[in-house]
């Protein structure tokens, strides 16, 4: 079936540094998302993105976070600077349209030390 690829699968970074999480969404999908999951528990919405713009973001999407998808390449989540509480698994997802199935990647485990 359709796959969302996330690179890298693990990332360890020093607090205060910048990190970019990369996502290769399903090729014909138009809506893109980032979710944050801590300790294999609740899946928390961060942001969704459509037509080159952020559609909606949650309170968890701090000013240090940004997303972009330049020229149809990777959909990226950048955190600058990182904080200890940013340690989590970040899932990228995509969907073809509204209210259709959302496909998730396997996640990037980010550890901020």
């Amino acid at each position, binding site marked *: 079936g359709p796959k*969302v690829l996330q690179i890298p699968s693990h990332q360890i970074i020093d607090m205060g540094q910048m990190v970019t999480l990369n996502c290769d969404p399903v090729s014909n999908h138009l*809506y893109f*998302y980032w*979710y944050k999951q801590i300790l*294999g*528990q*609740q*899946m*928390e*919405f961060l942001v*969704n993105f*459509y037509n080159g713009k952020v*559609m*909606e973001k949650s309170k968890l999407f701090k000013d240090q976070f940004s997303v972009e998808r330049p020229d149809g390449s990777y959909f990226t989540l950048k955190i600058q600077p990182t904080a200890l509480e940013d340690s989590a698994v970040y*899932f990228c997802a995509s*969907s073809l349209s*509204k*209210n259709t*199935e*959302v*496909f*998730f*990647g*396997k*996640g990037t485990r980010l550890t901020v030390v």
Partner: protein
Amino acid sequence: GDSVTQTEGLVTLTKGLPVMLNCTYQTTYSPFLFWYVQHLNEAPKLLLKSSTDNKRTEHQGFYATLHKSSSSFHLQKSSVQLSDSALYFCALSEGNNNNRIFFGDGTQLVVKP
């Protein structure tokens, strides 16, 4: 605001027994409900979805019926297997211009021999 409630954090069952995982939701829009299953270290995958009131939907032995009168979308299976052990998320998508998906806290299902 919109929300999804899953009352059980952990459900432990013996193989072959029936299971029901509770899900209720709150929204002012026309709801689309989903169940996602996440196995250990894997991406969440869509299990079931529905937007039709009082219609049972089934997949891989699991079934659920959206009841708008009680704002519920409980997940059931008549006979659980060891391979069903996973984290189950109930999710809500609003039937509006956004495409944000709200996830419940998740229910960890553990099936024992």
